[in-house]
C-alpha cells in the first residue's frame, strides 16, 4: 500500500504544479496590459501602477510564479480587487455552501442511480428497462439550468410546496440538490446497469440461484456487491461534473456558493477571486479523485498495490 500511495502521489504533485502554472499564467494571457484591464478603461495612471505593483506584475515572470506558489502553499490567494478582502476569507463560507450542495447531490445520485440501474438490469430488455434508460438519456441531455427553472416553476410557483431561491431551511436545499443530482444519477444508473448485467451472468450468481437463494438476496448480496467497484469509481469521478453543475445550479437558485461569485467576479474582472475559485475547485477534484483511486485499490484485490 505504501508504495502504491507514493506512486499515486508522485502523479498528483506534478498535476497540481502544472495546474498552478496554468492559473498563474492565465492573467498574463489576457490580451493587453492586465493591470490596465483590471483597473478599467478610465483608471488613472497611478491606479494602474498601484495594481501592477499589487499583483507584482513589474517583476520577472519566474520570480512572480515562485512568489505565487509560496503564497499558495501558505493558503494565501491574494486580495479581491473589488472588496480588497483576502480571497480566502471571501471564499471560505461559500466553499462550504457549495460542498454542502455537492455532497447532497452526490448522495441522491448514488442512491437513485444505483436503484434505477439495478431495476433496469433485473428487468433487462423489458419496458421498465427501456423507460429507465430513455429517462437516463434524457437526464444526460437536459440542460441543468433549464431543469432548475422547470422545477421552480412546478414546485414553487404552481404548487407552492418548496422555496425557490436562497438558503435557510433544509427545504431550500431540496430543489437545487435534485437539480444537481439529475445528471450524475443518469450516469450512475447507466454504469450500474452495465455492471450488473455483466455480473448477473457469472457462475457464482447462477450457483446462488441454483442453491435456492432468494432472488432479492441474489441481486443485492451476490450481484450488486460484485458490481459495486465500477459504480463507486465512476460515481466518485462525477465529483467534477457535480462541481461544474453546482456553479450553474447555484445561479438558478441564488444559492450563496462559489458559482455566483465566480460569474460575478468574471464580469467584474476580479481576477484574484476567479483564480482562487478555479484553484479551489480543481484541487477539490484532484483530491477527491485521488481518494477514489485509493478506495478502488483497496476494494479491488486484483490490483497490485505496488
Amino acid at each position: 500500500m505504501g508504495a502504491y500511495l507514493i506512486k499515486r502521489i508522485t502523479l498528483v504533485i506534478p498535476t497540481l504544479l502544472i495546474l498552478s502554472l496554468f492559473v498563474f499564467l492565465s492573467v498574463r494571457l489576457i490580451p493587453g496590459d492586465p493591470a490596465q484591464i483590471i483597473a478599467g478603461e478610465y483608471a488613472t495612471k497611478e491606479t494602474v501602477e498601484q495594481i501592477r505593483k499589487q499583483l507584482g506584475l513589474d517583476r520577472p515572470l519566474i520570480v512572480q510564479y515562485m512568489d505565487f506558489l509560496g503564497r499558495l502553499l501558505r493558503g494565501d490567494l491574494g486580495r479581491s480587487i473589488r472588496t480588497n478582502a483576502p480571497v480566502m476569507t471571501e471564499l471560505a463560507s461559500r466553499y462550504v455552501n457549495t460542498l454542502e450542495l455537492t455532497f447532497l447531490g452526490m448522495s441522491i445520485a448514488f442512491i437513485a442511480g444505483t436503484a434505477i440501474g439495478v431495476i433496469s438490469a433485473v428487468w433487462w430488455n423489458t419496458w421498465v428497462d427501456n423507460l429507465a434508460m430513455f429517462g437516463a438519456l434524457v437526464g444526460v441531455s437536459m440542460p441543468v439550468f433549464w431543469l432548475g427553472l422547470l422545477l421552480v416553476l412546478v414546485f414553487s410557483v404552481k404548487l407552492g410546496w418548496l422555496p425557490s431561491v436562497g438558503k435557510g431551511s433544509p427545504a431550500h436545499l431540496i430543489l437545487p440538490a435534485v437539480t444537481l443530482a439529475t445528471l450524475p444519477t443518469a450516469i450512475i444508473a447507466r454504469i450500474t446497469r452495465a455492471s450488473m448485467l455483466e455480473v448477473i451472468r457469472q457462475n457464482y450468481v447462477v450457483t446462488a440461484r441454483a442453491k435456492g437463494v432468494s432472488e432479492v438476496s441474489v441481486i443485492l448480496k451476490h450481484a450488486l456487491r460484485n458490481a459495486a467497484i465500477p459504480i463507486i469509481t465512476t460515481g466518485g469521478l462525477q465529483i467534477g461534473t457535480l462541481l461544474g453543475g453546482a456553479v450553474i445550479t447555484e445561479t438558478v437558485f441564488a444559492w450563496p456558493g462559489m458559482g455566483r461569485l465566480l460569474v460575478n467576479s468574471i464580469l467584474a474582472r476580479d481576477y484574484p477571486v476567479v483564480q482562487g475559485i478555479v484553484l479551489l475547485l480543481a484541487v477539490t477534484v484532484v483530491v477527491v479523485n485521488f481518494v477514489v483511486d485509493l478506495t478502488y485499490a483497496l476494494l479491488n484485490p486484483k490490483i497490485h498495490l505496488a
Partner: protein
Amino acid sequence: MRFFKRLLRSRVGLSGLFITGLVVIAAILAPVIAPYDPIEQDFTLSLQLPSWRHPMGMDEFGRDIFSRVIFGARISLSVGAIAVAIGFFIGMPIGLFSGFYGGWLDALVQRAIDALMALPGILLAIFVVSILGIGLRNAMIAVGISSIPVFARLMRSSVMAIKEETYLEAARAVGAGQARILWKHVLPNAFSPVLVQVSYQFASSILWAAGLSFLGLGAQPPLPEWGAMLASGRTYILSAPHVITFPGLAIMLAVLGLNLLGEGLRDVLDPRIFL
C-alpha cells in the same frame, strides 16, 4: 455504406439521426421556416401567450419565440461544430503522438491533461472565458479548448491499445517506416472510438455553450441563443412560463438527438462496449 445501413437499422441510431436531422434542417432553412424576424420587437405583444399566429408565444420584448428558437439552431449548431473541430484537430494529434512515442514527453503531456481535466467540462470553459473575455465567439473557443483534453486522452488510450497489436509488429517486420505506420495503421484503427466521441462531444459543447450564455458569459442580447433566451426569460417565470419552456426544450432536443446518434454510432462501430 454498410456502416450507414447498420446505423439506420439500429433504433437508437435512427432516432438520433432523425432528431439531429430536424435540428440541422431548422438551422439551414431558418429564414424560410421562421415566420418573423428573430430580433424584431413589438412591445404591444410583450409576453403574449402562445397562439396560432405565434405558436410559442412572445418574449418580453415582443419578439416571436418560435422564430428565435429556429434561428437559435443556427447558433447552437455552429458553436458545437466549431468547438468540436477545435477540440478534435488539436486534441487528436496530441493524443496520437503522446501515445505513440511515449517517454517523458508523454508523461508531461499526461500531467498537463490531468491538470486541465481537474476542471471538467463547463468549469474549464468558464475559466477560459475569464481569460479571453465574454461573448459568443470566445465562448465557442473556450468550449473547444475544454474538449481538447477529452479528445487527447481518448486518442492516446486508443493508440496505446493498438501499439500492442500484432499487425503493427508485422508492419515493422516488413520494414514500414514510423510515418507510414502512424498514418496507415495506427490512425485509422484508433479512429472509431474518437468518432463516437465526436457525437457526444458535439452534444456536450452545445450544453456548455448554452450554459455559458445562460450565465451571461456567452452570447449577448439580442442574439437568439437558447441559453441566453432562458437567462433573460427567467425573470418572467411567474407571469409567462412559456418564455423559458421552448428554448430549453430546443436545447434538450438538440442534445438528445446527438446523444442518441452517439449511442447508435457506438453500437455500430464498437459492439464490444456494452452500456
